Structure formats: C-alpha cells, structure tokens
C-alpha cells in the first residue's frame, strides 16, 4: 500500500469511527452531546440515542412538567425519509423551591434516551443523517434559553452493530428511568382537593405496597405530567395505608375539570437492607408520540424485567461503591489505624515485646498470633454488629462504645495496664521480663490479647477512609460485610505482623536491657491518659453519678492491686472491697442518662429532624454536627475547625443554625439519619443551604477553609432570596 492508500484507509477509519458521535456542544451553562448506541443500524431496526447534558453546578433544566415556571427541553428532528423519532425520556426530577415558586428540575449530568426507528426500506451501504435542533431553558436564579443543533450520521448495514460507549450510555440512561408500575394503575379524585393513590391494585406484588406494609417508605412526592393538575407549591399530605401511598394536595389555579390527567411519577425513599434508597415509579407513560427504545417498550409493557440496577442509587453518597472498592478502602484504613492515637500506646508495648521475642526467637510465632487476635476480634465485632442489625437494633460501628459498661471496663483495663507498666504489680516474672505483662510476656495468650485490645481501642479512631467502606458494608448481605471487616483487620494487623517476619529488622532491634524498664514505665502515662478520656466519655453517657462510680472502682482496683502484694488477709480484703464496690456502683454505672447529650454550648442546639425541617422552612441555613464523645476524629474537628473564631463568625454572619446530634449513647433516630447518608458511624457533617432540600455532605476531616467555603459558597449561590 502506497502512502496515498495509507492515508485513504486512515481517513476511512476516522469516517467509520466518527458517525456514532456528535461532538459535545458547549453552550454558556450546559454541555450537550448526542450519542448513538449503535455504530451501524440494520433496516427496520429501532435503536437508541442518548442525549447527555452536563449542567453547570447550581443550575438546572426542566422536567416534562416544569412546575410553576421554566420550560421543558424540546427537540425538533430533521430525519431521512421514513425515519421516526420518539419522545425524549426523562429521569425523575427534583423539586426546586424558590420562595413561593416550586419547579421540577434536573441537575448535574442527565442522560435522556430517545428511540429512532429506521424504515424497513433503508438501503444498506447508505448513511442516515439524523439532525436535531434542541432548545432548553437553564436557570439558577436567572434563566437563559439555550439551543443547539446536533448532527449524527449512522451507517446502514445489512447487520447492525453496537457502539461500545453508546450502548453503555444507553443502558445507563434506560436504567435511570423511573420504574413503570403503569399496569397496576392509580386512583384519582379531584373533588375539591386532588387525591391520588398508588398503586390501585395492591394485590399484585409491587415495591410500593411491600414498602408501605413494612413501614419502609418515606418522603413520597407526586409529580404529575400535567402542569394544570396540582398547585405545585402546595404541601402534599402523604398517608401510608392499605398498601398504598395516598397523596392529597390542592388543585392548580389553572385546574380544568374537563381536562384532568393524573398520570405521572411517585418518588420516595425506600429502605432496602437497612439503607434508604431513592426510587421513582411511573404511573402512565409520559406524553409524547413515537417509538420507544426496544428495551423500554418491553419493560413498560411488562414483558421484560426492570434493569437490575433499577433499584436506583442509595439515597446516600456511598452508593456507587463496589465490594472491591470497599475492601481496598478498608485495607488502607486498617493500615492507617496503626498510627492513630488510640492504638499507638497499645502497639508500642507490643513493639517493645518484639525486641524481647526476637531475642527468644519467637517473634514470628507472636506475629501470627497477634494477627489471629486482631482478625478474631474484628470478625467477632462485625458478627455482633450484623446480628444486632438483623434483629432490628439501631446500631452502627462504634456501638461497642455506646454501652457504659464497656466504657467502664475499658477504662479499668487501661488503668490496670498503666499500673502494671509503672510497676505497681507484676503478673509473675521480674525486671528481665520487661515489656512483658499483659501484652508481651504472657507469650501466645499475650500476643492474642494485644491484638484484641488494639482493635477495641482503635474503634473510636475509626479513620475517615473507613467510614465509607463500613457504611457500605453495613448495608450489604452478611458475607460482603464480613469481607470488608476482614479486610480492615488484615490492613490493621499487617504492619506489625510483617515486622515480626523481618529478620533484618530483628538484628537492628536494640538488645533488651534496663532501658526497656524505663520505656515501659513511660508508656504507663499514655495508658492513664486513655483512661482519663474514657472517664470523660462515661461522664457524657451517665452524668456525674456514673463518673463517681467509675472513679470509686479505680480506687478499689488500686487497693486490690496494692493488697495483692501484702499478706493473704489483705488480699482477701482487697478482693472483697473490689467486689463490694462493683456491686454498689453497678446501677449508676449502667444507667444511661437520657438527658446526657454532651454539653450544648451557647449558639448550639440539639438536633432533631423536626428542628431541621422547621429551620429549613424558615429559610435558615443549617449545619448539623453528628458527633460522639468517644469519637476522636469528631473531637479533633471540633478543636481545629468548628470552634475557630473565624468559623463561629461566619456562622453568625450568615445566620447559620448549628445543630448537634450526639451519638455518645445509643439513639435510633440518629442512627437512622446516619444510615440515610450511607454512614454507619460518626462524624458526619451536613450543611443545608436555604431552599435546598438535600444537604451538602462535608468531608470527615474538617478544616476552617472547608467550612468557610461551604457556608460562603452557598450563602453566595443562594443569595437569601430563595427564602419564602
């Protein structure tokens, strides 16, 4: 092939590659692209195009019924003879509230499937030139009409062929359409108020009736296709009864009893495996003539099952995460846990014992046993968590620190370890067994115990990376959840276990000697510090009586330890004193103070869903801090970001209401709120801009800048006037 031939074949290759794709067109506020699912079409086939629009942040375009203002996106086709185009199919809209004006909009990236039917007489070897003139209105506060013409050339062949990217986009677009429940029907009455009930036939299995009967549905909203049926801004009174979602609302001012059309969508959040998921259901086909994508037509006619991901994305941001991502995140999170302040003292002791063990040649053995201890504890915790959830309890990661008894036991344990490290007592053995005690010297049992203790101690430091993975895991079947927890354990145990297997390192470790005694005694103080922190956590859970109870136990434990080094009589007295004290303080220690929600400082309020709704209705921006006394990350964020003067000033300047949801003790409403954002633990920070129904989820590691940015940006974008 000569140069010319080569160039021609290149050109031909481009010509073949190009047709299925019209270049994206950028207008002022939207990027629009038309993609064909087919690289080549056969005569007579119905194929799918996707119109992809990427809308500028904070701007929106409109649904079929735009609501009180705005205008739906329109298409005007210019097609070869015999070709037919179907309607633009919309995903479910969102509600946009601007003062007294309510509109139904699309935001972000939107995929619309459109069907094109080629005539049976289309000639193979020709090229079909499809051209469409699209107009849309895009608004934030102001509105801009935009338009574009899109040309797409698709070759006609005897056999059609998929375009890989186009086919994938089309499948995605079709999966994002509302699930059709049209065959089940709905009831509509327009006598005074507009009353609709979905579905009409409740005796056929369907997701709405199932969810209503199980009490697992909330936030239902009715979107009629007709602009003249309901008053869009009027409240929708939702009743869940008889396997139906019943919606009652006021009629539109332009309601016309001679032209009533109730078909439309019902959107709601449905709880599925613990997670609240946004769902959209269609009752009646959307307006518009012409062919439908084959897949859509089959689903709507009830001849094909809805796409597998029809269940929609969880209402939470953690939605898109797959098992592998969750496992990878958990692994990384586990490694990071090693350097968290909760775990470091425990591991230091172990590291100290490594020097000893290396000398004795048992390092590898201890490494493996430590690994087993970590894994066993993680899986046991995960097992309990899964079992509790299955039983319907409102628990999440960190639940083990929500029981005051657990906190008290941990505090006593840390105190005891501290006493041991400082030399107040020995569990057999003398100075040469430095680094021994609980974690080291007891050999196999000690190594196992260190692993277990490290895991328990690590809980409050649950690294931000892990929150997403754990939140995801909690919504999965037990096997997947266990896999994620196991990955977390592997990541957590790996660094130390690897150390015990590194002979090169063993040689470098300093020889055991008197220095180890000093190191050991110094380590007692972080242990006492950890105990003090746990006392404070308990104080938040149980109030001052619980604190006094725990401190009394400290005294009794101290006496018991001292007595243990005296004569037998003393020992018996010490034991009796300890047991008696425990018996006396048991009640105050285990009584969760219902009022205990941490201190609510000036300028803060206690969180409740109703309070958020009130403030939102009043147009007040709301910041919610989901926290717990035992959550170290939460406390760090409060210190470095939330309590900074600049942040407090910004909250005050913008009139932001600061609500605090304290999860130190168990609270099912808070657990539910966390779950609705795909989380299984704290911290969680939400910012509700005025007029925005959905909050912005802020990062788990806050900084002054992140907060100022969030408040400033939304205060700017919203400009106050969205408030009624």
């Amino acid at each position, binding site marked *: 092939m000569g140069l010319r031939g080569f160039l021609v074949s290149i050109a031909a290759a481009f010509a073949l590659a190009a047709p299925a794709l019209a270049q994206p067109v950028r207008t002022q506020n939207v990027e629009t692209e038309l993609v064909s699912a087919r690289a080549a079409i056969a005569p007579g086939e119905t194929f799918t195009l996707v119109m992809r629009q990427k809308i500028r942040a904070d701007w929106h375009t409109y649904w079929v019924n735009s609501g009180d*203002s705005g205008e739906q996106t329109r298409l005007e086709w210019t097609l070869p003879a015999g070709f037919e185009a179907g309607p633009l199919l919309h995903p479910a809209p969102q509600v946009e509230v601007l003062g*007294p004006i309510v509109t139904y909009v699309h935001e972000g990236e939107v995929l619309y499937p459109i069907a094109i039917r080629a005539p049976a007489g289309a000639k193979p070897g020709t090229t079909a030139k499809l051209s469409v003139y699209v107009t849309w209105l895009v608004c934030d*506060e102001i509105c801009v009409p935009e338009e574009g013409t899109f040309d797409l050339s698709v070759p006609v062949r005897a056999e059609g062929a998929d375009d890989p990217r186009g086919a994938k986009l089309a499948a995605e677009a079709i999966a994002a359409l509302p699930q059709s429940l049209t065959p089940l029907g709905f009831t509509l009455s327009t006598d005074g108020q507009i009353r609709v009930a979905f579905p009409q036939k409740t005796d056929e299995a369907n997701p709405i009736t199932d969810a209503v009967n199980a009490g697992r549905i*909330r936030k239902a909203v009715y979107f009629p296709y007709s602009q003249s049926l309901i008053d869009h801004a009027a409240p929708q009174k939702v009743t869940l009864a008889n396997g139906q979602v019943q919606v009652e609302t006021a009629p539109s001012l332009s309601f016309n009893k001679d032209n009533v059309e109730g078909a439309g969508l019902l959107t709601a959040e449905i709880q599925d495996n613990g997670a609240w998921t946004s769902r959209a259901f269609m009752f009646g086909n959307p307006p518009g003539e012409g062919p439908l994508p084959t897949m859509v037509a089959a689903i709507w006619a009830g001849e094909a099952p809805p796409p597998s991901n029809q269940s929609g994305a969880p209402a939470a941001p953690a939605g898109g995460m797959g098992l592998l991502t969750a496992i990878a995140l958990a692994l990384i999170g586990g490694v990071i846990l090693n350097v968290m302040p909760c775990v470091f003292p425990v591991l230091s002791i172990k590291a100290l014992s490594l020097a000893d063990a290396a000398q004795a040649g048992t390092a590898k053995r201890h490494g493996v046993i430590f690994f087993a201890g970590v894994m066993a504890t993680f899986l046991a915790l995960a097992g309990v968590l899964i079992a509790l959830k299955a039983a319907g309890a409102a628990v999440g990661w960190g639940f083990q620190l929500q029981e005051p008894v657990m906190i008290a036991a941990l505090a006593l344990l840390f105190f005891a370890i501290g006493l041991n490290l400082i030399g107040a007592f020995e569990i057999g053995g003398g100075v040469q067994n430095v680094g021994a005690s609980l974690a080291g010297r007891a050999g196999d049992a000690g190594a196992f115990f260190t692993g277990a203790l490290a895991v328990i101690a690590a809980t409050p430091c649950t690294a931000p990376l892990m929150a997403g993975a754990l939140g995801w895991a909690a919504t999965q079947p037990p096997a997947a959840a266990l896999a994620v927890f196991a990955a977390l354990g592997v990541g957590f145990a790996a660094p130390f276990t690897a150390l015990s297997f590194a002979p090169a390192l063993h040689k470098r470790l300093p020889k055991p000697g008197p220095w180890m005694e000093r190191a050991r005694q110094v380590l007692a103080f972080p242990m006492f510090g950890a105990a003090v922190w746990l006392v404070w956590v308990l104080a938040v859970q149980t109030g001052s009586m619980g604190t006094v109870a725990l401190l009394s136990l400290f005294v009794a434990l101290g006496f018991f330890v001292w007595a243990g080094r005296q004569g037998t009589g003393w020992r018996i007295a010490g034991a009796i004193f300890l047991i008696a004290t425990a018996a006396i303080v048991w009640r105050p220690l285990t009584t969760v103070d219902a009022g205990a929600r941490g201190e609510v400082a000036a300028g803060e309020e206690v969180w409740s869903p*109703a309070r958020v709704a*009130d403030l939102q209705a009043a147009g007040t921006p709301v910041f919610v801090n989901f926290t717990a006394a035992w959550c170290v990350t939460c406390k760090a964020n409060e210190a470095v970001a939330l309590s900074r003067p600049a942040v407090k000033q910004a909250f005050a300047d913008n009139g932001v209401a600061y609500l605090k949801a304290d999860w130190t003790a168990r609270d099912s409403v808070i657990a539910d709120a966390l779950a609705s954002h795909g989380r299984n633990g704290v911290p969680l920070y939400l910012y509700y801009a005025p007029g925005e129904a959905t909050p912005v989820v802020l990062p788990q590691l806050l900084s002054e800048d992140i907060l100022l940015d969030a408040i400033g940006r939304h205060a700017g974008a919203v400009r106050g006037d969205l*408030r009624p």
Partner: protein
Amino acid sequence: MMINRRFVLPALAVSVVALAGGLFLSQRADAVQAGAPAPAFQAVDAAGQTRSLAEFAGKTVVLEWSNDQCPYVKKHYETGNMQALQREATAQDVVWLTIVSSAPGKQGAVTEAEAQRLTTTRNAAPTAVLLDPTGAVGRLYGARTTPHMYVIAPDQALVYQGGIDDRNSADHATVQGARNYVREALTAVRAGRQPAVAAAPPYGCSIKYAG
C-alpha cells in the same frame, strides 16, 4: 418495641414532611382564584405616586408582572406583542398596570427613573408601572412568573389569571399563532361574559422575590 420502631420512623418522616409543608404554606401567600374579588393593593408608580386598585373601580384592569431581562418578557416586547396589546387595551379605556416585583439588586429590579426609561425605550404603553421591591403585591396575587397576567373586571372581580398565551417558549417565533388568553378575557369582559379560559398555567422566569 422493635416492631414499634419500624413504624415510628416512617410516621415521623411523614409528619416532618407534613409539618414542613404546613410551615411552607403558612409563609406563602394564597394565590388568587379567578372569580374571586381581586385583593386590594397599593404601590408607588414610576412617577413616585401611590396608586391603588381601588382608584380604578369601575374600569377593567390588567396586571402584568414584568422583568425586562427575562427571556420570556423579551419575547413579548421585542416582537412588539406586549406593546400592541397594551395599546389595544388602553384605547378601550382598560387600565394596564405593569408591576415589577424583583427585589433590589436582583434581575429586573428597576428604579423609578429606570422604569420610565424602559417604558420609553421599549415603546410600551401601560397606564402605570408599579414598583413592588418588597414583593408584597406579587405575593398577594401569588404571581409566579414573568410575564404573569391578571384581568380584573370593572366590579373588581378577577376574571383571568395565568400566562399571556398558550405558548410556553422564549422563542420569538412562537408569538405568531398563539392563543392570547388576555385578549380573549378583555373581549369577554367587554361583552359582559365570563372568559372561556379563566386560568391557564403562567409561564416564564420565576419572579425574583426578596428573601
């Protein structure tokens, strides 16, 4: 206890939504229904004079909500459609009040001088341009969009509210052949009839109300 909880949460969610809706409703003016008496209002016009609906008792009144920057308003002014209707109406002794409810600093907000200049440059012919920077009049009438039109009969009953016509589009070409509901209503009132269409969906940009 476990069983109760399953129902408590959905019930809570429903009541929160209902509560939020109720609060929302209490904050928003009830829109005026065609056939009801038109609510009385006062506002300052572009000449600085206080005008009221009461002073026009006995005459047919058209209310036109406007925002000169809005593409839908532009459609009707740049094609001359709105001005023609204004001249047609005022020639028949109809009072035409153009009302601007944009809050100061927002799209469409104008000072008295700017309002007068706009009337000149747009060659418009309203009886008066009323400035409603607080949005009080707009909220009183439940005005949603620009344009949003109201026709009030001489007995001060509201006979039409909604879009100026049946073409929800900013495309200038759609003015041709549109069904103009305001013209129909004015014709009906002159003939002593009720208009065939008493309400149609208003269309256009949302009104940029004060927060």
